[in-house]
């Protein structure tokens, strides 16, 4: 737009005009590679999922589509395993996210002190983040083994009877959540730490002059300053929890998510419908349900955060 100003209204040769047009179009060439890929492999599949969910499509013949209207959705509502998966996704989401974020908050607070070996702590805590879901799950599946698992052995030393970490509903969900907690606590710790470091030092100084203790400083300076970061981590964790897939798949290596589907999540249920039973249309309906769920949860989250802020402002 700055170009318009510089061009004199005098006679323009054809070459000049062409050069101008080229300069105006150049920026599009720079965003084109990304947007071409984005349109083809990002946006289109996402939108087309809604369309596919209205058809009967089988895995073996993905080219043949048969109109079914809302049948895929009504079939979902009538399938008890859909409700099991929905419930599991919610409970595993809570068991994995809440302790994870609380621990991350505490650890970030500690890392925010002047510490020796601070860089070491940060790197060591981020190590699980570098590990793949598959690798982490295979290791934890072994640690949680019923007969020879290390965790049951340690529990035995403490006089606790061995826990069946596979077939129990709560025990298996706790085990699966542990994998999530292990992989993501360090990451969230660093996110919180970054947020804490951007709280202006003057606020702490002012609080200290007013005689605030460390604990009061944490509650009244750190936490409010961290609110946007907390909202961010809650949103990201919610999205992650809604589509949880690799951990429940590889925990015992079965797409049912346990012998009675006791830890099957929506992500895994979608995979089972699509690649276990070959119902791609049905799987698309599940994907769309997950998408709506994410939009809903993120929306609720944003609304809550906003209300808190307004309340606080009016106080």
């Amino acid at each position: 737009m700055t170009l318009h100003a510089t061009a004199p209204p005098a006679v323009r040769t054809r070459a000049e005009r062409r050069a101008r047009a080229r300069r105006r179009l150049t920026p599009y060439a720079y965003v084109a590679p990304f947007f071409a890929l984005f349109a083809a492999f990002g946006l289109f599949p996402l939108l087309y999922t809604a369309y596919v969910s209205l058809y009967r499509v089988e895995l073996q013949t993905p080219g043949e589509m048969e109109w079914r209207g809302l049948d895929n959705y009504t079939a979902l509502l009538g399938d008890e395993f859909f409700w099991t998966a929905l419930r599991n996704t919610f409970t595993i989401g809570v068991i994995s996210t809440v302790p994870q974020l609380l621990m991350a908050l505490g650890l970030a607070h500690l890392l925010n002190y002047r510490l020796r070996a601070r860089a070491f702590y940060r790197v060591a805590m981020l190590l699980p983040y570098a590990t793949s879901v598959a690798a982490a799950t295979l290791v934890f599946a072994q640690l949680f083994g019923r007969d020879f698992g290390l965790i049951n052995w340690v529990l035995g030393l403490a006089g606790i009877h061995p826990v069946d970490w596979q077939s129990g509903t709560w025990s298996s969900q706790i085990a699966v959540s542990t994998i999530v907690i292990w992989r993501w606590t360090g990451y969230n710790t660093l996110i919180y730490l970054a947020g804490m470091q951007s709280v202006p030092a003057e606020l702490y100084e002012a609080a200290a002059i007013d005689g605030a203790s460390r604990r009061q400083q944490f509650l009244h300076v750190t936490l409010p300053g961290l609110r946007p970061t907390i909202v961010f981590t809650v949103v990201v964790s919610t999205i992650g929890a809604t589509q949880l897939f690799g951990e429940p798949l590889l925990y015992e290596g079965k797409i049912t998510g346990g012998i009675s589907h006791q830890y099957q999540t929506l992500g895994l249920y979608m995979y089972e419908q699509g690649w276990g039973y070959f119902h791609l249309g049905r799987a698309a309906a599940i994907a769309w349900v997950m998408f709506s769920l994410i939009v809903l949860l993120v929306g609720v989250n944003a609304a809550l955060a906003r209300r808190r802020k307004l309340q606080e402002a009016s106080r």
Partner: protein
Amino acid sequence: MTVLAPPPRSGAPAKDTAAGRPSRPSRSTGAGRQHHGGRLAHAILIVAVLFSAFPFYWTIVAATRSNADLAQTPPSLLPGPNLLPNIRAVLEEADIGKALLNSLIVSGSVTVGTVLCSTLAGFAFAKLRFRGRGALLAVTVGTMMIPPQLGVIPLFMMIAELQWVNQLQAVILPGLVSAFGVFFMRQYLVQSLPDELIEAGRVDGASTARIFWSIVVPVARPGMAVLGMLTFMASWNDFFWPIVALSSQEPTVQVALRQLGGGYVNDQSVIMAGTLLGTLPVLLVFGLLGRQIVGGIMQGAVKG
């Protein structure tokens, strides 16, 4: 998402432990981050580090033992002599050698492609003016949070149509789409590339392409490196799409691990040997560049 604008930072936190031996602050500085951590803080942090590190240690223990060792009570807690036989077994059971090579090809291509596309688009969004810039940026940022996993069904139908199932490009091309990368590079360039530098280039009669290669890229290099590391790790560890699009005939590491964990292999120590081999490359990258990756994640956090 509300943290998009980087808040002002005071220089203190970056410097105060650089020497390893922090100088004692005078009592008058009351900033929370300047308190010294006591023994308790170290104790808790060490527990957290042990929690993080133990599964790695256990992978090594289990991968160097035999299956019989693992089924003993009390279990053996120290590494044993069985690593080579286990590795040999896993190379036979799941084609880990090929998987490592494929993962290297996929993650390498995805990294180079993503960094290039993101830098190009990030530069345009940061420094060039064009109609629709705001709207396009909003679309990019708005979809950053939408999990690609939700689009796998049409994506699968697409690559089935193209007959790309079981071919690496089926994983590489969708892997190049990174709204986060574009946004990351845009923020980086907005902050670190002064407009005057580009103006100077224009005055000298340089074309936009010339400006991009000889002014933008040198300035953007540190950001590109961080984005590259994050992209490489994410791509190496990507799970859902590769197991849908590929199979054991043309596996990436994650596909091979899935196969190992799928119940066909009963020998736990062999499974752990495979896990060790598949994790080693990222751990190597992490060992060399851990501090930069930590920095990148913290930067990314503040920037969005």
